[in-house]
């Protein structure tokens, strides 16, 4: 039995557009489980990013609840929500959003330093080990403008996981990257998931979706369907047939969802 770490109930989001209401999310019920690499897919404008921002506390839904740690985070004060963002959730954006006057390491240290339970040394050690794991040791003292897109995005992931969040949200994290950097970032996320990191990622890229062990399809603001897969890290990556099978399986499921 999987443990639920986050649950959305009757989640709706509407925007006013030239006098008319546009319903982007319609009464969505969704549970995110511990240890899962969940990927949300859907066509452009289907509401997948909106879903991600509303259940991660980055935006407020029009109605519904998002339960985390027994509390409805949609009703929390700004201070409490900020605390959840700092210590319980991590977030990776599609564009590389790093503070441009801080080095990659400093970008990572900032949220780390907010954790009063850790010493400066402990935070630094954790950041250095993350940078090593992400192959970023050489770039850590460079500014975002001085590194490649892939390096910057890996830096952003390091920042998102510095405080060992319970859930890592990623909004098309490879959307702005080239092929080789995309692969590096996805490998890194797979690695993190293997180590027990729960991930909820939004993407419209099938290659990225293959990394999930749970796929959710969203269409017109509603959940169209979902599919469970074997964890990607449990696959034999040298067995090309196994990978091909997984790709076919996902493709056919997506076709069934009118992708």
């Amino acid at each position, binding site marked *: 039995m999987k443990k639920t770490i986050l649950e959305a109930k009757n989640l709706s989001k509407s925007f006013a557009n030239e006098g008319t209401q546009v319903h982007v999310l319609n009464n969505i019920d969704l549970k995110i489980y511990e240890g899962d690499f969940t990927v949300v897919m859907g066509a452009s404008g289907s509401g997948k990013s909106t879903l991600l921002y509303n259940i991660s506390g980055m935006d407020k839904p029009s109605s519904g609840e998002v339960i985390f740690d027994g509390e409805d985070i949609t009703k929390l004060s*700004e201070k409490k929500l900020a605390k959840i963002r700092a*210590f319980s959730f991590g977030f990776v954006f*599609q564009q590389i959003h*790093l*503070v441009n*006057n801080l080095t990659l390491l400093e970008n990572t240290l900032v*949220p780390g330093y907010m954790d009063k339970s850790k010493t400066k040394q402990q935070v630094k050690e954790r950041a250095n080990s993350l940078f090593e794991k992400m192959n970023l040791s050489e770039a850590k003292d460079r500014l975002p403008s001085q590194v490649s897109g892939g390096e910057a995005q890996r830096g952003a992931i390091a920042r998102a996981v510095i405080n060992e969040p319970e859930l890592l949200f990623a909004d098309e994290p490879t959307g702005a990257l080239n092929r080789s950097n995309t692969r590096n970032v996805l490998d890194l996320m797979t690695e993190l998931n293997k180590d027990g990191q729960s991930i909820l990622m939004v993407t419209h890229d099938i290659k990225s979706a293959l990394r999930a062990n749970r796929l959710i399809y969203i269409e017109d603001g509603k959940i169209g369907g979902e599919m469970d897969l074997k964890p990607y890290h449990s696959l034999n990556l040298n067995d090309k047939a196994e990978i091909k099978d997984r790709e076919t399986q996902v493709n056919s499921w997506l076709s069934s969802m009118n992708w």
Partner: protein
Amino acid sequence: MVNVMRDMMLITKGNFRKNKGAYIAVFILMFIVSVCFVSVISVVRNTHKHNKKAMEDTGLGDMLIWCAEYNITDFNEAKTELSNRLENCDAISEVKAIDQIETYITDINGKEYGNTIFLTSCDSNLVSYKIFDGDGNPVTDPELNSREIIVPISFTTMFNVDIGDTFTIGRADYKIDVTIKYFFEDPYMGTQIMGVKTLLISDADFAYIRENYKDANIAFADSVLLSLKKKDSDMSDMKFEKQINKDTNVSAYGWVSLTKTQSSYYMMLLLDVFSGILVGFIVLLVIIAIIVLGHNISNSIEKDYVNYGIFKAIGITSKKLKMSIMIGYILTCILGFVVGIPVALPVIKVVNEILRPIGGTYVETSFDIGMSLLAMLAILLVVGLYIMLKVSRISHVTPVRALNEGRADVHFSSVLRLPLSKKLLNTSLAYRQLISRKKQYISAVIITALLVVFMVLINQSLSWLSGGDEKIMSALFDPISYDLSISGETADELEAKKKEINELVESISGYKEVHLMSKYVLLDDAKIHCQIIDDPEAVFNLHKGRTCLYDDEILLTDYLSRELGKGIGDTVTVGDLDEKQEYIIVGLTYTGNDAGKSFMMNCEGYERLNKDVKWTWRVGYYSIDDESKIEEIVDSINEKYGDFGISAKAYGNDVDGDPISLALNGISVVIYVLSAIFIIITVILVSGKMFEREKKDYGILKACGFDSGKLRSQFALRFMFASFVGSLLGIIIAIISGERIMELIFSMFGILHLEFSFGAPALIIPVCVMALMFYVFAYLVSGKIKKVNTRVLVVE
């Protein structure tokens, strides 16, 4: 041509729409500049004009000489002799001799006033003063009953009295209580800065005093005011004075003399000094306004960079674009000036009312339009040239470069970079943001520096005038440094108890006593204030040469030395009554007495001019060895000898209410308030640009777990840091140039030489005030950070 204008107006309108906030800020700044400039210019020029006319309206002449009975052995004989001499003098066209009574104020609001008072009959047909009621309305036909008196308006602030209040004139056993009925305008010596005052009493009272107190010249002495008119109106007052003294030696018999020029100088002294300070500050505001304007223009150019490319691509020239910006800002400046002018009128009224008791004149509330417009035009010209300079970069915009946004990546590297601190995370992040975008804060730094220079100087002046430990006040206005003074109502009263008093002082602490006497004598044929000292070694403010040890030596102030063109080693002629002697200048001092027109000699020196002089002192100045005992001595003397007309006073007891301190306090309030307004505008403008640029960073930091409070505090801290840098710069400028600036200000008081160091409070207070203002305003302005949603980071 029509098309060109139409294009430019369209672009200008567009600029107005897009940069509303910036134009509003420029409007507010220019509005403030306009109100301040028009007010100061109008008040100063109106007061000068008014005073000149008021002097003429009194019917008095170009030179006034006050002669008193006690000063001359046979007053009536001397009066006749003087009249004869004056009537035979070719340089004089008219002589008026106005009878007066010289007296003193012994009790006004519980205090004694040490200066001489001249009583004049209100009904005298030789002089005509303008009388006013308590509301400042003119009284055309004043009715003065017995024991009623008319005083200069400056009495209200000098002694905190008003119409209906009673005070005592006379001395010793000869005293009269009088009640204030009206105020009058004395354009010759009504100002608070001049100690000697004329008061008007009824004809009946005047006759009564002369008749009943004719033998009591220690309290009421016969006196005459000689008013002399020049024959040649083109002759300068100084030349006239020298000519009269040379031909008639009349001033030698006078207690004090004043030419119209000297009188105007003293009457306008405070106003000129303070308006000078204010004009300096307003010029500073104009500079700040121009800096802010430049900041705005750079902002709007940056914001509209792409649009300029588009305009150029469709054939609009750089010239048109530049002109459109220029028109926008110039129109805004003009609007600010125009709206500011009528608002200045109530300000002028208020300032006139504040200055009335200080200046002693009833100046009309009106604009000096000509001069104000000229000043505004000059500012517009400077602003116009500056805008031209700022918009010149539009010429370098090419359509392609603009459409590519024309901005290169900013690589930040600085030697000032410090590692992030875990404990002071907010502060270190704020510091990093500050040094990575230094250019944005340059205007804040420069503005702070300029304001701090001004604040430091004003604070230092205030600290001096409030009598600090170093007794700088003493250096400015007293030739000796002392801890307490003991005075009798008359010299005889003090003399009688002197031995006992000194024994009492000695029993409490060791002391040194010095005596001073002020007298107006002729120095190279001009009547000049002289201080005669019995212990020349006690002279405190000597800065060049040595003190006057021998009977043929004198000390001059720097100011007088410059006026006479004579220095140490030179000889001058000093005269009193019919005696004249040569003296050598042996040292230079600095003092604000008589606006610097003062010199010193020892008692033996004066005896050469008047060998019959009897040295009786009404006041003794004491330096106490154990300063902690000063209060005890003062209390003991007042307790034991108060009933004998003797009183003791610790140094600086009256300083709080002095007009210079009051006016400087007022100016410092104005400066702090205007600084606050300018800081708000600067913060709003600078932060507006920064906010747009940093919106993404706030989103990122919010996503990382920072709440709005922390981000706002980081934002405000950056401005506080910038203000610290500016303050530091300001302090350095103040220390380097402060002495020169202060000397410039104090030279108007006749003090050409100042030795000072800045006190810690004068430096620290402005720095703290600026830092606090920047922090608070930046924190308030950063309220919009609350509205930043992490959705700014979302690409959809």
